[in-house]
């Protein structure tokens, strides 16, 4: 009862492919995560356990070992909650074997099985393509951010139950299609404007030059005009 699920870790802006290997075997019941996890990853144990229970699935009372490979890279953050849960369900056979070798999972679980948003989704998705991933399953709240990336199938999930149903083919989740151009051209309106500043033409001119050439600049003035800087 061994399973293998993929996930992605970030080292700065660089992505690393992480394999979440799960084994459920005989022995004294226990739950162990190895592969240099830090505290937030170790705590995933409790979140995953309760998320699975509260999603109406059984948490096996057996010896469970989870390895996050490569085992010499330090793992940090809550990205691995979802892949660990999926790996466990896969090893139990609750998720029927499916072709998941090109699919990566990231997401944080809450105790009721909800998939919470995580940081760094955009760099993760960009790096996923470089790592040969075709499909990524991530928190629904992060879909907008991820959808900027082309050539990657992005599936946003709300909770663990929905994820299980989706992988088993019992539920269809529509791919979010976002018009990148529309998103990009959405002009942000500023509520401040240069026309509100009266006088100070020389300063305005200097700032215009600074903006045009990307020059660093320094404004020197006495406190009487400080509020105008």
């Amino acid at each position: 009862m061994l399973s293998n699920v993929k996930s992605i870790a970030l080292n700065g802006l660089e992505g690393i492919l992480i394999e979440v290997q799960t084994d459920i075997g005989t022995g004294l019941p226990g739950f162990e995560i190895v592969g240099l996890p830090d505290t937030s990853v170790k705590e995933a144990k409790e979140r995953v356990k309760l998320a699975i229970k509260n999603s109406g699935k059984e948490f096996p009372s057996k010896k469970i070992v989870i390895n996050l490979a490569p085992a010499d890279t330090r793992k940090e953050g809550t990205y691995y909650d979802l892949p660990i849960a999926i790996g466990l369900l896969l090893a139990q056979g609750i998720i029927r074997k499916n072709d998941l070798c090109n699919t990566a999972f990231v997401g944080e679980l809450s105790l009721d099985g909800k998939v919470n948003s995580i940081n760094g989704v955009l760099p993760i998705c960009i790096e996923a393509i470089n790592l040969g991933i075709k499909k990524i399953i991530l928190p629904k709240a992060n879909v907008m951010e991820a959808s900027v990336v082309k050539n990657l199938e992005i599936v946003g999930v709300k909770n663990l139950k929905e994820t299980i149903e989706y992988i088993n083919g019992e539920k269809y989740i529509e791919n979010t299609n976002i018009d990148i151009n529309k998103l990009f051209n959405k002009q942000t309106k500023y509520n401040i404007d240069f026309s509100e500043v009266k006088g100070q033409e020389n300063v305005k001119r200097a700032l215009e030059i600074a903006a045009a050439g990307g020059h660093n600049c320094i404004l020197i003035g006495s406190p009487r005009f400080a509020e105008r800087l």
Partner: protein
Amino acid sequence: MMAKRLATILPDVTFEEALEITKIHSIAGKLKANRGLITTRPFRNPHHTATINSIIGGGRTPKPGEISLAHYGILFLDELLEFNKSTLEILRGPLEDREITISRINSTITYPCNFMLVASMNPCPCGYYGDLEKQCICTPYNIQRYLNKISGPLLDRIDIQIEVKPVKYEKLEKVNKVETSEEIRKRVNQARNIQKNRYSEENILSNSELTPKLIEKYCELKEESKNMLEVAFKKLGLSVRAYTRILKVARTIADLECTKDIEVKHIAEAIGYRSLDKKYINREDINEQNINK
């Protein structure tokens, strides 16, 4: 807040720039929910109590700091001289390299930080040095000590120095039409496009990134302009570092007017943006005052 309004006239972001900005904000966890792409240039203004780690980035697994969050945007340091000297000096490298490598026990991470530094400061501790209406009460020694907080190498990296003078009451009363940010931004965009096309083979984006070698190539001066610069150089006692700054800024002024060559008037205006050099740092006048006292 004039510096804050500077963000409204910055050139439009390209798609690649927007992607980079969003990436860094995403890692730092600063992306608002359901916000796809950040399409405006960031404006960061950390308080002067900011620590070195918060400025350059840090943590056990390094997270981006203020300089990286200001990538392709503005890092505004209000009351520059109130910052820790070490905090300011740390900006030297990033301003030059436009990226920062942070080494910690778990990992060594490089984040980009191509930002525009905008700072504001008082000319002296009491704030009135150079004011025409109010007397400055600082001793020359105090002024010098105050200004010594910014080091030469840091000042070296600041191209434009502007003195903000008081507005006359009559000007406040006048209701003549003032330019909006949008009108100014149009000109800025135009100037940036000229630069982008010119430097398409040089791997830089704007005049501020010109290296000495590239300055020689792209900021060629005519005889007349050369003479003008020479006179100014001698008369105003400008430093060598001021020389390249003046050329870069003059190049931008010429680009704003869409002229190919740098003309005398462009040089003249650029010289005007070295007030800190003339008035405060080459402090002969203060020393003279000191002797007279």
